C-alpha cells in the first residue's frame, strides 16, 4: 500500500511552491516510491557489509596546495545582483 507523505512539508523544505494538484500528484507518486523503499528495507542484511559508496574504500584525497581561484568580475556577472564585490540577496532570515 502506498505510504502517506506530507508533501507540503517536504516541498517547503525544498523551497518548492506546489499547486494543490501538484501536491496531490506528488503525494501519490512519492507514496509508491516509499512503498518500494520499505520493501527493500525488509531484506535480510545482517552479516552484509554496508556499502556507502559504489567506489568502496576510496581514500581519494588531494594535497593541501592552493590553486588559482576565479576572476571576481566573472563570478559576479552570474549573480542577479551584486555590490562592492558582494552577492546581494534578500534578507536571509525571513
Amino acid at each position, binding site marked *: 500500500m502506498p505510504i502517506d507523505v506530507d508533501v507540503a512539508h517536504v516541498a517547503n*523544505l525544498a*523551497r518548492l511552491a506546489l499547486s494543490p494538484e501538484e501536491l496531490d500528484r506528488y503525494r501519490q507518486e512519492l507514496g509508491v516510491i516509499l512503498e518500494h523503499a520499505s520493501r527493500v528495507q525488509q531484506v535480510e542484511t545482517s552479516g552484509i557489509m554496508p556499502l*556507502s*559508496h559504489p*567506489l*568502496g*574504500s*576510496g*581514500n*581519494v*584525497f*588531494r*594535497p*593541501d*596546495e*592552493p*590553486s*588559482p*581561484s*576565479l576572476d*571576481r568580475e566573472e*563570478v*559576479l556577472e552570474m549573480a542577479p545582483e551584486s*555590490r*562592492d*564585490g*558582494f*552577492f*546581494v*540577496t*534578500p*534578507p*536571509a*532570515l*525571513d
Partner: protein
Amino acid sequence: MNWAPVIGIEVHVELDTASKMFCGCRVSFGDPPNTNVCPVCLALPGSLPVPNREAIERIIRLGLALNCRINPGSVFHRKNYYYADLPKNYQISQFDIPVCVDGWLDVESDEGSFRVGIERVHMEEDTGKSVHVGEGGRIHTAAETLVDFNRAGTPLVEIVSRPDLRSAADARAYTQELRAVVAETGVSDARMERGSVRFDANVSIRPPQSQKLGVKVEIKNMNSFRSLEKAIRAEVDRQVELVEAGEKVVMETRHWDESAGITHGMRTKEGSSDYRYFTEPDLAPMVFSESWVQEARSQIPELPARRRERYRHLGLNPGSARVLAGSEPDLRGLFEDAVESGAAPVPAANWVTGDITASLRRRNACLGDVPLHGEDLAALTAMVSQGRISARAARQVLEGVMDGEGSPTRVARARNLEQISDQAALEQVVEEVMSAHSQAVERYRSGEKKVRGFLVGQVMRATSGRADPRAVNQILSTRL
C-alpha cells in the same frame, strides 16, 4: 526553587590549512570579498569536491589529543538546508560515522577539576559570510544580505561535548581548555577575534535531584568566551522564569544578541530529519589505517594538562602552574630556559607571570622584542636569593636588562643597586645615623621600641635603599 542547568557545547573550529576542504581556493582571512572562490565552493553545476588530506590528518590529530577513538573508516553526508551563505543548499558534513568518537577532556578551573565527555569530532565545511544590511545590521531586522564566499568551504571541525557541564562558568572553562588544545596541536590558529573558534550551546534546566533531562534549547552565535558565558546565563534565567511562571520550555534554536544581552527565537527550526542527511555520493569513503593513526599520534605535542602536571612537579602550586601553562609559548620557553640555567622554578615562574608579563604589556612588546633570556632570569633570581639585591631593586634590574643595558650583574652594578652587605661599611653608616639622631636613640633606650623602625629607615635612606635590612637590624641590636 533551585534549578540545575545542564549544558552541552558544540565548538566549531576553522582549520588554517593552505587550501579549502574540497577545492584548491586559498584559506585566507581578510581578503577582498569573493576573491577566493571557484566552481566547487560556489557550487557551479558539474563541479566535484576532492577532500584535503591535510585537513583529515589534522582532525585525526585533534581527536587523539581529545582522547577520542578514531573510527576505522568514515563517510561524508549531505546536510540539506537553505541559507544565502550556503551555495550548494547543502553542507558537506558527517552524520553517523564521524572521524572521531568517545573522547574526553580534563578541565581545571578556580572551582576545581572536572572531566567533560566528548561525544564526537567530525569534519565539515564552513559557510560563506553574510553581512546583514539595514536597521543596524541585526539579523532579524535586515533589509538585505551581502554574501562573501571566501570562507565557504573552509575546513571546519565540530567538537560535540556530552551534556556534562553544570554552569556557565564551567562552559567557559571547558571551551578555554579546548581552545588551548586546538592551538597546541597546531590544527588552527584558534584566533577568537577572527571567528576561528565559535560556540553553540544546548541548554536545559531540571530540578537539582532529577536525573531526567529537561527540554533543551540551542543557542547560537557566540564567538567569545565572555559571550558564551553571558548567553548561557541569560538562557538559564529565561528558562527558570518560564518554568516558574507555569509555562513550558519549547525546543527551539535561539540566536544570541550580544548588544541586547538576550536570546531571540529564530523563525525556522528544522529537526534532524528535516536536514535529510544522506551519504555524499561525490565523495568516496575514507579508511584510516593503524599506521596513519599512529603517525598522527606521534605529532601531538605536550598538551596543557600534561604541562600543568610537569610544572606542579617542579614545585609550582596548582594556580601558578595553570597560569604559566596557559601563557604564551615564548614566555613558557623563557621559564623553561631559566630553570635549565639553574633558576629555582617558583621565583622564575613568578617573575614570568608577574613582572615580566606586566613589563611587556607596558612596553606593548612581545618577548622577542627585548633582550631577556633564560640565563638572565636565572641570574636575577640567584642575585635575589643570595641577598645581593633587594626584591625592589630586582625589578629595576629587570627593567634595565629589558632596556638592553646588559646582564643583571652589569645592570645592578651600573645602576648602583647592589646591596651593601659589607659589615664594616654598614656599621659605619649605623654609627652615623645613631649620632645624627641621638634623641631617637635615647627614646628607644627609655622603652619606646617603635623608634627602631625609624632608625632602620634612616639607614636605608642613607644608603639609597641598598643596605641589607637583615644586617642593619643585627647591627642595631648590638649597638642599642
